[in-house]
């Protein structure tokens, strides 16, 4: 394709979220400013999509209101998104649980910072548990996408749009303050028109928008059930859907992992840092590779389990005290030891930090000389 004709721009990750949403035909944005993601709403306010595509943009009074605006939008079959950062996402958890319970579409962009509590405004990855295991109540899952570049921020907005309507599950894009704030060259997607009301009517017969009411039973969305048997049945059906998503939607990337004896597992900014680490160690003759989950839920369990057979050990790199590491351990089912490295509270490991951590891990692993099968017990 002619490079000249592509829409290449140099933008921040957060700005790209806004621009990609307009171009992918999102119907609305509802959000509340918080560092380090405020550029999302700021960019939308400058671009004024309500005058072009007709996209609605509203600065809500809180994150609690934002997520409930998203709930309403999804209930009527519209494609809307919100964005926030760690403490803001914490406030949204109730609404996210309600959206999952009513099986409503919606996209939540989370640009992580250091925590817990108000934490710091510097980048962090300590919200893995918040995204994947949720702070909302009940048996539910979100599809969680993990971009590691500004380009992928744009791509994820397209992927999230597709997945959230395909499965009627809220989708979270779990990014971090680095990906949100850094500038990279990005190819913006072409403009897709927003769906017309008639298209929504055709595609979302479950939506509560009044359309065609005279020819059908009325629709409603409620997460309340007084009969526990009915509630259990609803949960079973949702669980069935989640098992299908786990079978079909796992996405990951590998880097120099084909002949690897050691594997680094990392997502988001940690994967960018770790690529450099892999290069450095490869230059020194170490057979190390990287596996990067692009979906944190569903998690790439099978590939990790298969790879573990030929590995000596795994290093999980996260800018937290270690959250994804539990999923990696579950995935490899004790075949190999799994170590963690990373900084937290708003600090980011350098590639050299990870090289050092890797060498310490390898030394310990060799010195312990774990008997075969030790980690399976």
């Amino acid at each position, binding site marked *: 394709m002619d490079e000249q004709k592509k829409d290449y721009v140099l933008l921040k990750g957060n700005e790209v979220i806004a621009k990609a949403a307009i171009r992918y035909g999102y119907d*609305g944005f509802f959000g509340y400013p918080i560092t380090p993601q405020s550029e999302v709403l700021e960019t939308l306010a400058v671009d004024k999509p309500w005058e072009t595509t007709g996209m609605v943009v509203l600065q809500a009074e809180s994150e609690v209101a934002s997520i409930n605006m*998203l709930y309403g939008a999804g209930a009527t079959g519209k494609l809307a998104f919100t964005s926030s950062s760690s403490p803001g996402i914490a406030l949204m958890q109730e609404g996210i649980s309600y959206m999952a319970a009513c099986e409503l579409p919606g996209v939540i962009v989370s640009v992580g910072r250091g925590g817990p509590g108000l934490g710091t405004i510097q980048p962090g990855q300590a919200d893995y548990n918040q995204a994947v295991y949720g702070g909302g109540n009940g048996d539910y899952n979100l599809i969680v996408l993990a971009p590691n570049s500004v380009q992928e921020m744009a791509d994820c907005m397209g992927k999230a749009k597709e997945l959230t309507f395909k499965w009627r599950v809220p989708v979270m894009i779990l990014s971090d303050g680095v990906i949100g704030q850094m500038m990279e060259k990005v190819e913006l997607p072409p403009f897709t028109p927003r769906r017309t009301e008639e298209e929504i009517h055709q595609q979302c017969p479950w939506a509560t928008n009044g359309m065609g009411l005279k020819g059908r039973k009325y629709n409603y969305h409620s997460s309340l059930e007084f009969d526990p048997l009915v509630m259990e049945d609803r949960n079973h059906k949702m669980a069935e859907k989640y098992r299908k998503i786990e079978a079909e939607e796992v996405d990951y990337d590998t880097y120099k992992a084909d002949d690897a004896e050691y594997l680094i597992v990392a997502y988001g900014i940690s994967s960018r840092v770790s690529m450099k680490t892999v290069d450095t160690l490869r230059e020194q003759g170490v057979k190390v590779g990287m596996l990067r989950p692009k979906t944190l839920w569903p998690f790439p369990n099978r590939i990790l389990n298969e790879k573990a057979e030929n590995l000596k050990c795994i290093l999980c790199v996260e800018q937290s005290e270690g959250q994804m590491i539990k999923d990696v351990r579950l995935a490899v089912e004790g075949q190999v030891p799994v170590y963690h490295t990373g900084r937290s509270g708003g600090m980011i490991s350098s590639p050299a930090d990870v090289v050092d951590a890797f060498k310490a891990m390898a030394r310990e692993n060799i010195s312990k000389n774990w008997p075969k099968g030790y980690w399976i017990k």
Partner: protein
Amino acid sequence: MAAPFGGRGALYMTKEELIQPENRIYGKPALMNDTPMHYCPGCSHGVVHKLVAEVIEEMGIEEDTIAICPVGCAVFAYRYLDIDWIEASHGRAPACASSVKRLWPKKLVFTYQGDGDMACIGTGEAIHAMNRGENIAMIFINNAIYGMTGGQMAPTTLMGMKTATCPYGRQADLHGYPLHITDIAVNLEGTCYVTRQAVNTVANIRKTKKAIRQAFENSLNHKGCSVVEVVSTCASGWKKTPEQANQWMTENMFPYYPLGDLKNTNE
């Protein structure tokens, strides 16, 4: 046809035989379905539900209505009216309605909330939706008590009034004062119509219906945010018979929450 009154035949008449169009002087609105209501005898909710159904039917906007129900006694409102409903989380109905109306600007969007929902847990969402001038209607059932959870203190509970969580009566030093959220609504620039009504008499029911219609028309015509407070009874929560509850409301609630239009920018 058997004689309508007296005689053995009348006992065996079917509903259809009994209710002949020529005999009918009163009917249930078609939008109200036959699901048995969970509301207690003497509760105002049923009457307000009926008025909402009547107004939507008379305006002919069934396919252009999106309703948002709360948490509280009206949590199951979606079971009774054949229109599309979204059941919001506790207090968040105004936020939910805000996005829905902005995304579906031609539709009537209204919330139906109780005092706990609108004036306590959802005060922030209510005030901000009003203040943004969202083109929605808000129906606010104020019965000064938490009915659903069994009669606890509400933000609108009167001074001295006894509830499960203020068993010796509401007192300022312990519980603070009743929140006049409707009076706050009057002072917000985004509201176009604020009124306080009741459904204890036929005359008041008619006035409430008129108010609901006005609020719904405001939503359709993008006039701003309308608030229709209905001072209501909660016979069970107040531990009274329906009749006593009406009397108690007239004697105690109306002096504190006087009925009438508080703001109407159309006039």
